[in-house]
């Protein structure tokens, strides 16, 4: 792909934006090395502090603009957790809210040109999904004991079908963290890569006559993709969060 691009004079490196690099120097990446992932996670934390701690420091009954946004986010996730898991699921609210905040801020910060989208990495989303999976499994067994296994035993189905369904349910249960993580990382990666590909076409006007048609088109496509990515950034955070709630519901009420 890179060589093809070079022959036309265009440079395609759509995946370079996802590279993890050390912040200082060019050495090897150890587990503790501060990298651009560290930087953008740190910025996400600062934004969360800015919105939810500094933004609400007035504790005003009539909220300021920033406080309204913080309250909106709180109400949005709180209602989601309560609607899906019920009242007893609210003890997971801080945990779910942490996931939501991290994902939504990472997704939006990733839309800044030159930024690293930390949630486009399977390493990050995989850990998030595994954390949810382990929470659901461990809490499900602690709360329900062996009854948690009823999750796989579909009582509403005819008896001969139940073992087959149980097999399917078990497989789907273990596939959950995979789909949960790849959905988020894949969405974030694909959109950004497409923008980058369109961006690579943009300088064509400097090289050949066909650029007169291609360059405006590619810029338009970048704008359109960017708008779509803004939508995707929120929707994927929402989807990840609501799926977390749905899985938590299984732990709280395992019987179908």
């Amino acid at each position, binding site marked *: 792909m890179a060589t093809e691009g070079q022959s036309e004079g265009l440079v395609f490196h759509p995946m370079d934006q996802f590279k*993890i690099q050390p912040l200082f120097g060019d050495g090897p990446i150890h*587990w503790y090395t501060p*990298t651009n992932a560290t930087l953008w996670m740190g910025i996400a934390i600062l934004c*969360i502090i800015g919105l939810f701690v500094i933004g*609400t420091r007035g504790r005003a009954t009539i909220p300021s603009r920033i406080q309204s946004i913080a309250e909106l986010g709180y109400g949005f996730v709180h209602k989601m957790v309560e609607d899906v898991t019920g009242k007893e699921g609210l003890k997971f609210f801080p945990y779910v809210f942490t996931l939501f905040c991290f994902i939504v801020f990472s997704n939006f910060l990733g839309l800044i040109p030159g930024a690293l989208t930390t949630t486009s990495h399977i390493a990050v989303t995989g850990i*998030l999904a595994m954390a949810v999976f382990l929470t659901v499994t461990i809490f499900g067994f602690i709360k329900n004991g062996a009854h948690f296994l009823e999750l796989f035993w579909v009582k509403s189905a005819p008896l001969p079908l139940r073992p087959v369904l149980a097999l399917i349910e078990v497989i789907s249960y273990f596939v959950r963290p995979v789909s949960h993580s790849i959905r988020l990382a894949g969405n974030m990666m694909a959109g950004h890569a497409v923008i980058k590909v369109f961006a690579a076409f943009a300088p064509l006007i400097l090289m050949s006559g066909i650029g007169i048609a291609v360059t405006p088109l590619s810029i338009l496509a970048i704008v359109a993709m960017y708008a779509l990515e803004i939508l995707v950034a929120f929707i994927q955070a929402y989807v990840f969060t609501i799926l977390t709630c749905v899985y938590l519901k299984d732990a709280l009420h395992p019987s179908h």
Partner: protein
Amino acid sequence: MANTTTEAAGAVTEVAGHAAEAGGHAAQSAGMPQLNWETFPNQIFWLVVALVLIYLILSKVALPRIGGILADRQGAITNDIAAAEELKAKAVEAEKAYNQALIDAREEANKIVAEARAEIQKDLDKATAKADAEIAAKTAESAKRIEEIRAGAAKNVEEVARDAAAAIVDTMGVKADAKTVAGAVTARLKG
């Protein structure tokens, strides 16, 4: 022979090593950075740090605060609605009292008007009676005067008649004393 074989083997391994290196290089430059396992421990470590920090910030500071703000607001709204309802009830009561006062005032006014009318009527009656009495007195007096005048006039007529009779008798050459003439005239007047 054996030498060349080892050389060839060496060359093969060298080539294979280069290929692997090139492949690794290609994976780093053109492949998916997401699948570069070398960066996994680093990302996971920093992710866990970030998540723990966010969780602590949110659960210790932000969420209790926002929850408190929302609860306070809900309380304030409930209180305000209760206060508004109370005030509304008060307003209704005040309106009722106002209407009652209006009715009372109207009744009072009617009473005062009736009283005033009665008083005026009494005064009027008194004045009428007084005026009637005065008129009656005046009438009586007038009647007396008229009677007097009438009596006076009759006396005068008698006198004039007596004088005239005496004069007439005198003129006829008959000597008549005054007493007889007077008696005749009086008798005539009476009859």
